[in-house]
């Protein structure tokens, strides 16, 4: 399938536009947030790895904001947020601190946090360390480091080595990101959607990926991350209700990761058979209804 690699010249029209938006600033890094709808509860849609920005929630926002207030923000590194070059700026805890700053700026006392993939780490930190701000946590395809197994295909290559050629997951490589960024994005987003009829999500995802660059991604890789031990310490502290949604065909984060997270937090695990990594993008109705049911169960 041929996908043309070009950055979107202008944003696509949206099904719903924010009712409010703005920036929070921490240590000279500006982070852009949006608020949709009003009333209680508030759903905070967390950023994932900054390969994507907040538009990856576009199929949840219009639905959820009919039933609750929705707050989302662009990760540092993409969208309308700044793109610092210092790896320290991409510490997992910086994202969690951004989330708290956005909650303060939007007068959000407490929220149900929803994270996708690496957004799970952010949600986990918030739920464990700021229980008064988190009423419940949803994890979609979490890349949870505290349990489960890594996917074999992703273990074959070294991130820092220079290779003659870069096929498949060899593209997950510092040198390749800096030299062939667009091809890396196309590969990675393609792996994200193993489902048939995914040309639109793939086109969108590549477009978001091309709004940032290889240097930013390398900085996120070099940033301090949660060790397996950190992650398990965090799960032991989670007291709020947890829902984990994981695609049975996730080629980026093994379904065993989601299962371990659910197990350690006493949460509910829903495995969507036939779904890849981004269930909320490719199976939006199913995932939005699961989130809605979770919200209702907390009310």
């Amino acid at each position, binding site marked *: 399938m041929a996908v043309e690699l070009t950055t979107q010249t202008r944003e696509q029209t949206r099904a719903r536009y924010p009712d409010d938006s703005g920036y929070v600033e921490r240590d000279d890094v500006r982070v852009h947030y949006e608020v949709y709808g009003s009333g209680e509860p508030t759903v905070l849609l967390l950023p994932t790895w900054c390969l994507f920005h907040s538009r990856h929630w576009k199929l949840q926002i219009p639905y959820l904001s009919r039933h609750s207030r929705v707050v989302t923000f662009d990760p540092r590194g993409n969208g309308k947020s700044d793109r610092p070059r210092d790896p320290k700026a991409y510490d997992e805890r910086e994202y969690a601190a951004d989330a708290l700053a956005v909650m303060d700026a939007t007068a959000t006392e407490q929220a149900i946090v929803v994270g996708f993939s690496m957004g799970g780490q952010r949600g986990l930190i918030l739920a464990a360390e700021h229980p008064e701000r988190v009423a419940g946590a949803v994890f979609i395809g979490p890349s949870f480091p505290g349990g489960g197994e890594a996917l074999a295909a992703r273990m074959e290559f070294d991130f820092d080595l220079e290779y003659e050629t870069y096929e498949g997951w060899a593209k997950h490589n510092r040198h390749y990101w800096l030299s062939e960024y667009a091809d890396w994005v196309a590969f990675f987003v393609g792996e994200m959607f193993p489902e*048939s*009829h995914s*040309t*639109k999500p793939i*086109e969108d995802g590549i477009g978001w990926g091309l709004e940032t660059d290889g240097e930013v991604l390398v900085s996120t890789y070099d940033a301090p991350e949660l060790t397996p031990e950190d992650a398990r310490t965090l799960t032991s502290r989670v007291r709020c209700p947890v829902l984990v949604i994981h695609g049975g065909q996730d080629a980026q984060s093994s379904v065993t990761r989601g299962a371990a997270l659910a197990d350690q937090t006493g949460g509910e695990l829903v495995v969507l058979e036939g779904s890849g990594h981004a269930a909320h993008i490719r199976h939006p109705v199913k995932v939005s209804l699961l989130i809605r049911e979770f919200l209702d169960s907390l009310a």
Partner: protein
Amino acid sequence: MIVAAPTREQTRARYPEAEGFVERNGVRIFWERYGEGEPTILLPPTWELVHSRCWKMQIPYLARHGRVVTFDPPGNGRSDRPLEEAAYERSEMAEYAVAVLDATEVERAIVVSWCDMGEWLILTAEHPERVSGLISIAPAIPVHEREVPEYPFDEELDTDEGWAKENRHYWLRDWAGYVEFFISKMFTEPHSTKQVEDAVGWGLETDAETLLVSFRGWDTKEIDPATTVELCAKVRCPVLVVHGTEDELVEPERARSLAAELGAAAVFLEGSGHGPHARDPVQVNLILRDFIASLA
């Protein structure tokens, strides 16, 4: 693309409340009814290359607002595959519709047609007591000139590129090749892989032999323009014409002329191909809803 007829039907968003067959001149026609109450929307078949599942994006929505009746054409779906040409006559198609309305106890219906080749104009013109409104999506009814085919349908050609595939000998040699080609012209919008896959599957539920019973090229299949004008003059109910600006099978000009002849409103969908109800279902369903509401 791997071409294989589906081994079993996909799950549906909504299942019919009732289904059955009507029989006319020995031909069994399969119908389905969804929902309750008035008004009734009749979703009749189009060319028998596809069957009633082509309305799958309309049925669940419309059935929330009234009763929906649809049926398979002779030659595809669960209807018979008669080998007599008379069974596929335009006026005969209109009579199947009347028989289905009788069987489902529907007095009058709003007809929503796709790629009408004259049969639903005939139904509307000749059975005004049964049709309270007509929406014609991507009509293929000539008001002025007829289609001039690029290649003769019956002759052996020395090419099977492009529209040369629309040829008796090619059909018999590689039916799947023709179906794939034709459907690729139907959905020209990006991100149409699902619609293409569905429609190719429906096309493979019938075969070249069945379609050849009544098809000798579009120039012979089409209604005569003089007849179109006569029929239009008889239509008294409200009509809406909907057509995609990028339709590669039927030029939008035909819809414009037909709407003018009928004194009907016309909606042109920017960027849409020949199957807007399948490819842009929400947009089309809302247009249908507004038109249906205007008749209440």
